[in-house]
Structure formats: C-alpha cells, structure tokens
C-alpha cells in the first residue's frame, strides 16, 4: 500500500495539523493510541467482532439487475451500507473510534453532526459502550432534522445547539473543536468523516476501508474479476475513501466521486468543493475549501445535509490532484431522480447522499457500456429523507 499520509499527516501537500496549541497534545496522544491499537490484533478482532455481532456486517453486494437493464450499460452492483445498524456507513467509524476511546480510558464522547446520521451513530455507540455523549449540531440543522435530534436524545445523547455563524455543520464542527479544547483532558472527539487534523483522516479511512475490503472480495467471488469502476458520493468523503482505498493500486479500476452540485455549480448554491473551491485550511487540514477571495469560508448548499460541507477530506484532494480519482458534480434534481429510479426498479430507498452516487453511476454505466461492471457505494438508507422527498413531490418535482 502507498505510504501516506507521511509522518506529518500529509497526503502530498494536503492534510497536516492546523489546530490551536491547546489541542496539539490531544491529537498527538490520539495518533499514538490509534497506531498502537491498530497494530494490536486483539483490538482489530474486537472491532471486527463488534461490526459483525452489533452492526450486521458483512453488508451484501447486490447486483442491481433491473436498474442495469434500464440504464442499458455496464452492470451496476450496490454495496449495501444502508443495511448497517443505524442505516449508514457512519457506524463503522463510530464503533472504531468508540472502542478506541474506551481503550484510552476516556469516558466522554463528543461529535459534530450535520443531518444527524453521525450524531445518531455516535450516540448509539456511546450507549452500547456505556460512555457519555454530547453531539454538536447547528441550530438550523436541528430544525431541519427534528427526528434525528429526538433519536439522539432517545439514545441518551445530549444535543448541543451550535448558534454561531450559519448554524449548520461547519459551525457545529467549530463548536465541537472549541469544546474539545476546553475539555481536552478527559474528552474524546469522535469526528465523523475523513476530515480534521491528522490523524483523523487516516484513522477514519482505516475504520471505513472495511467497505472496500468486503466489496473487493465479494465482487471477486461473484464474477472472478475486479470491477471496472467504483462510484461514491463525497461530502467529507469517508464512505468514498472506505470503498476506494483497497483498490487504489488496482490501476485499471476507475474511481469516481460525486460531489453535491446543488442547484448547479454555476449558481451560488452548491457544495462542489473540488469543482469550485480553492486550496485552504479548514477544521485543521489543508485541502480544497469553498471560500471567497479573501479566504472567508462560504456556506455550501445541497438538498442532502450529509454532503453540505465547504471542505473535503485531504486524501480526496490528493487523489484528485494526481488524477487517480475523478470528481464530478451531481445536482439536487439528478439525485432526486435517482432516488425514484432505485425505489421503483430495485425496491430500495437510498439516502439522498447515496443518490448522488447513483446518478453519477448511471452516467458512468452508460459510458462504460455493456460487458463492464461498476460498484456504487449505497452509503445509507433514505428513511431519514422521507419528509424532504414528500416536500419535493408535493412541490411537483421528481421523487
């Protein structure tokens, strides 16, 4: 495997550790603890066991036959992360970091959340492991995602409203970092994506690569070869890295990431960080960032709250810069149409985030043509989005 990040947590020029001095000790301590635990077979076994017995892994690889026929191109396979406990891939990482927190003797978890999926996963793991849990969530998002707020509270989590800035995921992350700086001596910050200061992007990748490891084995078993392409949606990018990483050195496997194109990347309302961002520092890492000409961070937009983030994981910035992975924007409208399609043709309601990947996959399947095959990461299920979908349907749109 490629030897990155380097010792400074850099993926090429991206990544690193841009945090206030107060947090430096904590991220160094975390790095040592993670490296030690990940090198310990007992810890790995505990992690694998928990994924199996608690979250229901391995998740299946489903051949979407009717969808493939309808598209009329390459065969489409779905990696079913939607079938995980709590409904998305987020739990893989939450279990990994939760077990690590416990091993480090930390009794208090904090997390940030946008739509609430990572918050729910963290509150779930906190309950399972007997830890306390505070989830920072933008006030605007709390209003938009009332059900997930209630769900986190049912699980014993405390939801702390972030009332600064635009009151969404970016501000929730700021608040979590500020709280962590103040309570750093006994608190574990469980970041939900491959973002943040080193070692988070690496650690979260390692806890999510199970997706790609399983998919590779399952696809080989089913077809005797490797797929021609992989497709995943990218906000911070943890489900995408999870799928891509074990295939990085299989050069003939093309990698495609779907960014949230919102209402179009020529409008101000999108979250297409690689298409429209510039290099900058956000939440502890050097990466691509949506920002104005002075470096003030801009507010992203997407119909899908999980992709509504102005940055992207530094490893994706690196993969894009060397051309190993290609990232394309997918609009709200295209994603909503993909939801409809998968519901009707396969009987699966995908999360709006995953629907971005499906829309891009349909395009790639056509381009690749018959006789080829691709895997889409179906990163989550769409039960959480039913209210949003109803609104669009009532407004006369698709889905």
């Amino acid at each position: 495997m490629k030897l990155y990040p380097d010792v400074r947590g850099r993926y090429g020029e991206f990544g690193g550790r841009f945090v206030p001095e107060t947090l430096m000790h904590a991220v160094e301590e975390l790095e040592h603890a993670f490296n030690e635990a990940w090198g310990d077979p007992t810890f790995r076994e505990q992690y694998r066991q928990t994924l199996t017995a608690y979250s229901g892994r391995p998740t299946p690889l489903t051949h979407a036959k009717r969808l493939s026929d309808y598209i009329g191109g390459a065969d489409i396979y779905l990696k079913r992360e939607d079938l995980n406990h709590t409904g998305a891939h987020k739990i893989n990482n939450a279990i990994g970091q939760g077990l690590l927190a416990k091993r480090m003797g930390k009794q208090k978890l904090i997390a940030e959340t946008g739509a609430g999926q990572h918050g729910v996963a963290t509150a779930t793991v906190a309950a399972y492991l007997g830890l306390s849990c505070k989830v920072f969530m933008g006030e605007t998002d709390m209003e938009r995602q009332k059900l997930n707020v209630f769900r986190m509270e049912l699980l014993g989590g405390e939801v702390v409203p972030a009332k600064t800035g635009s009151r969404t995921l970016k501000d929730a992350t700021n608040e979590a970092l500020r709280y962590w700086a103040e309570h750093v001596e006994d608190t574990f910050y469980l970041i939900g994506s491959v973002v943040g200061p080193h070692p988070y992007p690496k650690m979260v990748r390692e806890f999510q690569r199970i997706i790609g490891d399983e998919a590779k084995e399952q696809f080989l078993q089913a077809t005797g070869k490797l797929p021609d392409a992989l497709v995943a949606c990218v906000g911070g990018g943890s489900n995408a890295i999870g799928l891509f990483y074990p295939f990085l050195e299989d050069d003939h496997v093309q990698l495609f990431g779907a960014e949230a194109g919102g209402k179009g990347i020529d409008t101000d309302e999108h979250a297409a960080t690689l298409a429209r961002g510039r290099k900058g520092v956000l939440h502890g890492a050097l990466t691509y960032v949506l920002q104005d000409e002075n470096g003030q961070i801009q507010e992203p937009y997407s119909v899908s709250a999980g992709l509504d983030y102005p940055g992207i994981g530094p490893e994706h910035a690196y993969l894009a810069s060397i051309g190993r992975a290609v990232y394309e924007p997918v609009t709200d409208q295209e994603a909503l149409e993909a939801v409809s399609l998968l519901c009707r043709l396969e009987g699966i309601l995908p999360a709006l985030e995953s629907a971005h990947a499906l829309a891009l996959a349909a395009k790639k399947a056509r381009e690749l043509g018959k006789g080829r095959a691709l895997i889409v990461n179906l990163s989550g299920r769409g039960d959480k989005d039913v209210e949003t979908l109803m609104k669009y349907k009532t407004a006369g749109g698709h889905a």
Partner: protein
Amino acid sequence: MMRLAHYITSHPERMHFIPFITAGDPNEETTVAMAFALEELGAQALEIGIPYSDPLADGPVIQRASARALTRGMTLRKAFRLVRRLREEGLQIPIILFTYYNLLLQLGENELSQMLSTGDIDGLLVPDLPFEESEALGALCRSQGLPLIYLVSPTTSPSRLARIGQAAKGFLYCVSSLGVTGMRETFHPEIIAFLKAVRHSASCPIAVGFGISTSAQVEALSGLADGFIVGSAIVNEVEERLPLLEQDDTRSEAIEAIKIALTHKLLPEYKNGR
C-alpha cells in the same frame, strides 16, 4: 523587531499590558481611536485581530466582534491600510497582527511579504498554526525581520515546550486556560508551575493571555510573566457601547468611558503609578 524588543522586555518592573482589539469593530474609526486610547493607558504593544468567518480559537465575545467587522467588509488588506494610518497618525507601540492561517494563505506569500516589508507591523500571531506547521510562514517573517509569535499551553508537552521555547522570538504567548478566548473566573490549576516551566524554556520574554479580565488576576500573575494580554474584556467594553461608537459625534465620549472602565477594572496599578 527593534520596536518590539524595545517595548517588550524580560523582567520589567511591572508586567507589560498587551491589549487586543478586532480591526473594524464596529468600524475603522473606532479601531483607530481605541489604539490611541490603549496606548495612553500604557499598552506596551497592541494585538489587532483580523476578523474571520470561522474563528475556532475564539470564544463568543471575539466571535461576535469578528462577525460585526466582517459585516462592515473588513479584510486583511484593509487592516494593513488601517495599520498604515495608525502609524501616520503617530501610534508608537508595536503592533502584532492576530490572524487565522487561511487568510494569510489566500493573500499569498508575495503580497504578504510586501505588506510586512513596510515596517508598520512588528509581529504575526496565528492561533491555528502550531509550531510544527509554521516553517514556511516563520521563514517569511524572518526574511522581513519580524517574529512569528508562538503559543504554548498547559497541555504542551515538555519536549515541545523545550523546542518552541528555544525557537521563540519577540515574546512567547502562554495560554492561561484550556479552551477558547474569553473572560474567566479561574485559570488552569497548574498555571504557576506552567509559567515557571515556560520561563525556564523560553529564550525571550513571555506573556500570558486567555481569560484575563480583572486587576486581581493581573496581580496574581505578577512576576510570573513579563506581559499580560487582554482581549475579550476590552472587546466586551466596545460591545457595550456600539450605538455610541457608530456615531462620529458620540464616539470620543464612548472611548473615554472605555478608558475609565478599563482603568477601573483592569489597571488600577497603572492609574496610581503613572
């Protein structure tokens, strides 16, 4: 560097007063008036904060100041022009720019070098740029003959403290409490041992900040550091007088009131001693 070394010295008779204000909060006229008022109150250096959309090292008071200044369109470039104006109008004390790293990155090395070369500014302080990531900016500052001010906190490990203390120039900023900037009742329990350790490691003067808002706190820290930094407590006085500071005809009245309040709450020693 000359100006900073002249004003900020080791083991001064009384601790140097280093105030912080946000550029453009709530307007440029106030920033200018505040700078001169603070110099009159005995400030030995002035930290000028550049507003940022995501100030993650700052507490609510400075976050709000940042938001107010951004609404009025303050930028790093405008702040440089504001500092030029302060010099033209005769401000003598050293000026340290306090700015988040992304703003410097977007300005670019060429323009930054050019702006630092005028001699108006005496140091940079970047709260989200730890020592390990500071090589490029540190070199750029050195080439312009001014220090990049480093921070250390009670959670800084002994080995890092030794390295940072060795490299520090200008002064070393000691974070008195964990968390973000803001007024506090108490400091970190290990504050005294921490400041002694920093004193031992540092090859330059040391200043303590984060959470200082009363003269009693200053008194308690006396002798343990060479300077004390006050931000939120000053910005808070500004915030309490926004309507007066907005108007040209009432601004100086508000500034006088702020001077009296700060003298009373923070600097009785200065009032009696000078």
